[in-house]
């Protein structure tokens, strides 16, 4: 057995994982496991900015930011968490600047800030400049800066190790098991503390902005080991994905003044959201687009509309939006200087995930019982600061604030009193058995029986798009529950070809596909049970929000048998802002 022992093992090397590692690198033994090289993590694809009420451009207050976060999340946000998020965003952004992050600057040398969807002054009066940014590659800059600091602090990395299993013993998280891609060996990491920072699962849908690596590994592994998944039905579709390919075109475009146009050349957002117009929150703008398309006002009657930046002028486009306009040129052959860009909503971000408290500690049930030694941060986690709909730029805020908080809590509160829980007997048995059975199946090769994993993957992605997308109803969700159960079965018998232990990416992909199916199960079950419309979860058969019955978080517990997950509910934390109708 390949055995490693650390005080802290962090799984995932994006913004949240590296931010946690930074708090711990000086005085504890910490290792970061990632299935990619750290700089390949999906944090690097974030574009528009990171919100913090610095007030560099105009008056702003963290409480305004908190209100926007709560309202944007359609009041499913835990308000104690939203307060932490927005207060600590300010210092966390200054930390990043001190570590060298190359923010754009104001004339007087401060961090420049721009407008973003749903961010307002004075509790909803109008847009405010709150997003701190570095051109349209803010996530890239955060990831690079965090990695640079990890190099400086000599953080130990296990790159290209795919996490397969979480070990829990004596009521404490005590390790993870991972596959080393390079030579196919299985490794057991024994630790006092595990941090999951493994990101989201956008690859469960056909049209997505997410990387191929975004397969919900952390969520699925936790779910299999009895940890519930919270609010998984709250999945965000970003309004402006490049038509057909789904690549993200940042909300920063609209923040800088871009228009959304239907086939009549009408700025339809003005009709739906007279105050915020194109800068209404993402869930709403995605629905506006779907409604335009449904009512026949898509371009050429098809399933897309236009994003137009041409009126901003070349100079502003090149200075503020260089990367995203390149995406339009490169992938659609459209020149944004002169032509509008075809866009459609794209699966983008999980508001739900592994439930945690505001210290990043993982929660096991509706009574907020923590699992000692287990933390989660970033998209994999649900604190919940995003509620039913995340505001643009708040994902990067979440990473840095809660990545930092988890790391600090581990260093200051957990490690001083923690000890190693013993590993369970044969700790890598489950993972080894899974890998060996998949490799054995591959030895039958192309002549083997069964369908390809790609057939299952496409079926998952198409059916999730059709049945669990921007608009949902009971009939489609019921069909999708059956579909997910069927896909689980089919996963057991699919055909594989690669028997090698050297960098076997087929093996990696098939394990990732299994993880996506687990995440889809929790998503669809939560969506079917939530008979209301709130934030990103829109039910055409229950089109209004129902605070009486559903102002609460869903917790999905995986069934030990093959059946649907058990759903339990826990109350939303409300401190300052009573739920109101959401208008923009």
């Amino acid at each position: 057995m390949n055995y490693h022992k650390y005080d802290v093992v962090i799984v995932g090397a994006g913004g949240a994982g590296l931010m946690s590692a930074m708090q711990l690198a000086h005085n504890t033994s910490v290792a970061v496991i990632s299935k990619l090289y750290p700089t390949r993590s999906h944090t690097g694809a974030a574009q528009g900015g990171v919100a913090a009420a610095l007030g560099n451009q105009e008056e702003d207050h963290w409480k305004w930011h908190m209100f926007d976060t709560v309202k944007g999340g359609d009041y499913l946000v835990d308000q104690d968490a939203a307060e932490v998020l927005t207060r600590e965003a300010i210092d966390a952004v200054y930390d990043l600047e001190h570590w060298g992050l190359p923010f754009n600057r104001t004339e007087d040398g401060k961090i420049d800030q721009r407008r973003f969807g749903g961010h307002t002054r004075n509790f909803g009066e109008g847009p405010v400049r709150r997003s701190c940014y570095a051109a349209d590659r803010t996530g890239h800059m955060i990831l690079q800066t965090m990695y640079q600091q990890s190099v400086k602090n000599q953080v130990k990395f296990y790159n290209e190790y795919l996490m397969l299993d979480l070990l829990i013993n004596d009521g404490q998280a005590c390790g993870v098991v991972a596959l080393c891609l390079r030579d196919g060996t299985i490794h057991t990491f024994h630790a006092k503390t595990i941090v999951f920072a493994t990101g989201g699962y956008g690859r469960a849908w056909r049209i997505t902005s997410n990387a191929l690596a975004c397969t919900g590994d952390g969520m699925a592994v936790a779910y299999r080991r009895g940890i519930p998944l919270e609010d998984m039905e709250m999945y965000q579709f970003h309004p402006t994905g490049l038509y057909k390919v789904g690549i993200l075109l940042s909300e920063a475009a609209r923040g800088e003044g871009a228009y959304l146009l239907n086939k009549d050349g009408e700025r339809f957002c003005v009709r739906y959201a007279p105050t915020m117009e194109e800068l209404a929150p993402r869930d709403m703008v995605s629905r506006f687009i779907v409604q335009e398309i449904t009512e026949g006002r898509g371009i050429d009657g098809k399933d897309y509309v236009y994003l137009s930046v041409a009126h901003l002028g070349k100079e502003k486009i090149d200075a503020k939006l260089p990367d995203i306009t390149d995406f339009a040129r490169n992938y659609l052959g459209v020149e944004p200087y002169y032509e509008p860009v075809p866009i459609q909503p794209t699966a983008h971000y999980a508001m739900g995930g592994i439930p945690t408290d505001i210290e990043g500690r993982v929660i096991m049930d509706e009574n907020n019982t923590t699992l000692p030694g287990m933390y989660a941060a970033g998209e994999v986690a649900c604190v919940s600061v995003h509620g039913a709909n995340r505001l643009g730029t708040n994902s990067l805020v979440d990473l840095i604030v809660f990545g930092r908080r988890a790391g600090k809590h581990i260093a200051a509160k957990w490690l001083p009193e923690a000890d190693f829980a013993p590993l369970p007997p044969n700790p890598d048995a489950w993972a080894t058995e899974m890998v060996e059975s998949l490799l054995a199946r591959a030895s039958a090769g192309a002549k083997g029986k069964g369908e390809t994993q790609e057939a299952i993957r496409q079926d998952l992605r198409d059916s999730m798009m059709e049945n669990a997308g921007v608009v949902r109803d009971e009939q489609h969700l019921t069909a999708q529950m059956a579909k997910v159960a069927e896909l689980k079965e089919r996963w057991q018998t699919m055909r594989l070809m690669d028997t090698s232990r050297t960098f076997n990416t087929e093996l990696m992909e098939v394990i990732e596909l299994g993880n996506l199916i687990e995440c889809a199960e929790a998503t669809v079950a939560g969506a079917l049970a939530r008979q209301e419309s709130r934030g990103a979860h829109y039910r055409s058969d229950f089109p209004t929000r129902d605070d009486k019955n559903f102002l609460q978080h869903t917790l999905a517990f995986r069934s030990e048998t093959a059946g649907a997950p058990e759903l339990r509910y826990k109350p939303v934390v409300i401190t300052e802002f009573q739920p109101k109708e959401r208008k923009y």
Partner: protein
Amino acid sequence: MATATGTRTIHIKVKRYQPDKDAKPYWQDFAVQAEGNDRLVDVLNKIKWEQDGTLTFRRSCVHGVCGSDAMRVNGRNRLACKLLVNDIGARVTVEPMLGFPVIRDLVVDMEPFFAKYEKVKPYLMNDEPAPRTERLQSPEQRERYDETTKCILCGACTGSCPSVWANPDWVGPASIVNAHRFIFDSRDHGGAERMQILGDRNGVWRCRTIFNCSEACPRGIHVTDAIEEVKRAIMFGTTDIA
């Protein structure tokens, strides 16, 4: 949309190598149905998912920002996700980048590359106590190093450089780009230290201004120009150069 679509057949020749099975690398041909708007990485995925599950390459974001899928395409280093079928014609050869040890098929060993990156101290050095808010930097000072902040560490420049091929110990263009990013950052105080590292015999002077790196960079960084700026900074002992 201007780009032509329509399905066509792409003949793709891939350099294969699986060390636990093959004595040496060999070429294998595949024919794939692809659309003009498909990316090369989509074509490789089609082969992997429909024809041969053993074809091995790295990929993640598939839109040119994560830097996973740098490979040698028709003799030039490219990101497979930034190249469309429309741009590559009906016959394509794909092989791993030169100058890197091959692990399997198109997957190369990136460890030496990151080790060289670490050598140039690629992080902000500034021991002065940080202010309560941000350190100030004018838009002009920020613009000075903008281009080299775009680097995604894909290795396309380093793998295209004949000086690297000749001497694998040389730090190579990507490391110098990342040194440049800090040397010309007004907030950084580590310039002298980095310039000493890069003034060494395995530093900037092994660059022969061949410009392959600039052509290879998928982020449009003028790599050779950045290297020249570092050379001049070392020569004149100052970053205050035109």
